[in-house]
């Protein structure tokens, strides 16, 4: 992965970064093999993938160098795993709601279906499917099942528009939520969720290519369940914990799903989705059976939502109605999509990353690092840095610095996120990625290299082939 990306990204200053190809326009890579051209067109994507791939190494390096500061600032690997699978769910939400304009408030139903399905298969609760079914198979079947449910829900819901559509999808999701909370067949206490039967599955689920041992790695949040990795590369020992292995394997699936969804968005089908969002009446008048396209988009989005849910449950090895099927789960996806940029796909993941970054920053935890207790969050960090002397300083009356810090930061993460959400809706309505696109005048993948290129050549933007 890294070598491919190196080829795609000549790096700043190492070569002329030309304009990407236009439709029918000047093509700097005419005659080059298709994969070179593909990577060249996607060099920004490749760079983002590389950044994500390097994150665990950067994290461990930085936290070792500056334990307190970096642990406070940077989200840990377990949090980043969540960013990946929930980011996929948020992107699938954006896929249907951001691109067709139909707000699916019941999207959590598909996330929950994916999560429940893989665990029920593993616990031998699904007829016809053996508990030893490879995780990747049950993940795909979970997606297909969710797509089927989406077609049933969509057949009724797409008769409505606007707020009525949002309400009816929410209604469907709540029906599924109540059903799954009370169905005894699922487990002993369905209201508090179900967990993987550890005697049947003592090890983590395998993500990769089914039946090919070398191409599979287990995912799990704990070392004693999942797979760890230790290898030597050029004299350095690279050791990966189970969450780190999970981060890479889940990242692979999420990355694959992102590119699949992006492919659909850039297809003629995706253009019809956008036309429906822009003006459904006219889309119909120019000859599109919009109902059919909306159903298709809904099913595709449900598929990927369920894949996100399946990864979530596979990693945590348990699921409960409130963290998967509850309507507020879709609310989190909506928030992430709006903060990241509605109708930008990748924005939803970045929006959620931003969210989690803030949540982590404002947390009040200590983690153990190298046998020492290190603050993880702004409040313990400030207490640590300021010291007892400053903390007990009286400001006025019996109010000390410690009281002020407590009032400001203790358990206030959600308050600040709420305030931030309001500010975003008011002042950054296009979200992070949407605003960046407006500023660049096009998609980031296309315009950013042009910008950097013209900067490097002193304001002149002429297309040129990669210099390698």
């Amino acid at each position, binding site marked *: 992965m890294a070598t491919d990306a190196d080829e795609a990204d000549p790096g700043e200053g190492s070569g002329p970064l030309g304009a990407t190809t236009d439709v029918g326009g000047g093509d700097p890579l005419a005659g080059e093999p298709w994969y070179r051209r593909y990577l060249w067109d996607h060099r920004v994507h490749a760079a983002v993938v590389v950044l994500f791939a390097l994150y665990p190494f950067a994290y461990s390096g930085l936290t070792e160098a500056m334990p307190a500061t970096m642990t406070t600032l940077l989200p840990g690997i377990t949090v980043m795993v969540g960013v990946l699978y929930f980011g996929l769910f948020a992107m699938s939400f954006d896929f249907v709601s951001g691109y067709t304009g139909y707000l699916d408030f019941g999207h959590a139903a598909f996330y929950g279906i994916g999560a429940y399905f893989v665990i029920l298969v593993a616990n031998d609760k699904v007829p016809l499917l053996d508990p030893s079914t490879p995780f990747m198979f049950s993940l795909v079947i979970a997606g297909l099942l969710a797509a089927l449910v989406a077609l049933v829900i969509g057949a009724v819901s797409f008769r409505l528009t606007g707020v009525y559509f949002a309400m009816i999808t929410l209604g469907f999701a709540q029906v599924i939520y109540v059903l799954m909370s009370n169905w005894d067949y699922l487990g002993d206490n369905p209201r508090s969720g179900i967990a993987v039967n550890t005697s049947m599955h003592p090890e983590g689920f395998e993500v990769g290519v089914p039946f090919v041992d070398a191409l599979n790695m287990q995912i799990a949040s704990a070392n004693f369940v999942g797979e760890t990795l230790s290898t030597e590369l050029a004299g350095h020992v690279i050791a990966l914990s189970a969450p780190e292995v999970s981060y890479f394997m889940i990242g692979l699936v999420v990355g694959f799903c992102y590119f699949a969804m992006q492919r659909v968005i850039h*297809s003629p089908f995706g*253009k019809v989705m956008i036309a429906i969002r822009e003006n459904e009446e*006219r889309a119909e008048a120019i000859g599109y059976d919009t109902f059919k396209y909306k159903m298709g988009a809904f099913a595709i989005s449900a598929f990927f939502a369920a894949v996100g849910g399946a990864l979530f449950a596979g990693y945590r090895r348990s699921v409960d109605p409130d963290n998967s099927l509850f309507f507020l789960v879709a609310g989190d996806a909506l928030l992430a999509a709006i903060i990241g940029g509605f109708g930008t796909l990748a924005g939803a993941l970045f929006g959620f990353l931003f969210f989690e970054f803030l949540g982590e920053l404002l947390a009040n935890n200590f983690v153990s690092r190298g046998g020492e207790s290190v603050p993880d969050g702004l409040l313990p960090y400030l207490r640590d840095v300021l010291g007892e002397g400053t903390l007990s300083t009286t400001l006025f009356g019996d109010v000390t610095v410690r009281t002020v810090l407590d009032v400001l930061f203790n358990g206030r993460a959600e308050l600040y996120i709420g305030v931030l959400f309001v500010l975003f809706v008011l002042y950054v309505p296009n979200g992070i990625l949407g605003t960046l696109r407006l500023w660049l005048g096009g998609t980031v993948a296309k315009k950013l290299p042009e910008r950097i290129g013209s900067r490097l050549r002193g304001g002149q933007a002429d297309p040129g082939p990669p210099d390698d």
Partner: protein
Amino acid sequence: MSLLRTRGLTKEFGGVTAVDEVDFEIDHGELCALIGPNGAGKTTFFNCLTGSLTPTRGTVEIGGSGSWRDITDAGPDETARAGVHRSYQITNIFSASTVLENVRIAAQAHGRGSLQPWRNVSAFPEHYEEATEILERVGLAGSAERVASTLSHGEKRQLEMAIALAGDPDLLLLDEPAAGVSSESVDDVVDLIEEVSADHAILLVEHNMDLVMDVAERIVVLHQGSVIADDDPAAVRNDERVREAYLGGYGADDPAGGEEVGA
């Protein structure tokens, strides 16, 4: 065999009969105008033709190779794919998309690829070519990359027409193409309609009498949902019932008149 016909087309809203037993026919290459005072049922008739409304009684049929195809119950999308396209009185475009994409997406509706989500949109250059051709035709080629919402009103009217032209319709239904267009730009609209009528049949609803008298080869007059006249412009102008119902003082002996009666 003509291009499209209606037989006893009737649309009732509760007790109100908006379109009343209309028998109408339009032939290939014809440029026909549909006029009538406000509330005469023109737009309802239009909506019955395009499938936005389902008629209470009667039929709409498209003439094909030797047989009539009933499209009475077809939705707007089916009607469009059958070759009947419309433009809107109130500009109805894809505002956040580029001008080119507005027309390209319309061209795509009649071509390949819409149901192939795994192909890139650039794998279908014919949609881009058709859109570019149409933009040249309506005079918007220079604005292809602009976002549609940034166009002026006149340009939006041109784009409205361009979208309707994509997919090479047999019959073009134009709903007040000159609505809100300044008097000096009306000539451009007239030129465009005449140019387009060279290879399309057109049914035109328009309140601007000068424009109608100028371009139409045939005029159908609706009054209270019924057809009261269907003839060439000169004959319609002199028809006693039409003058009574609608035109007021506008007549053959008043060559310069008409502006006041327009809207």
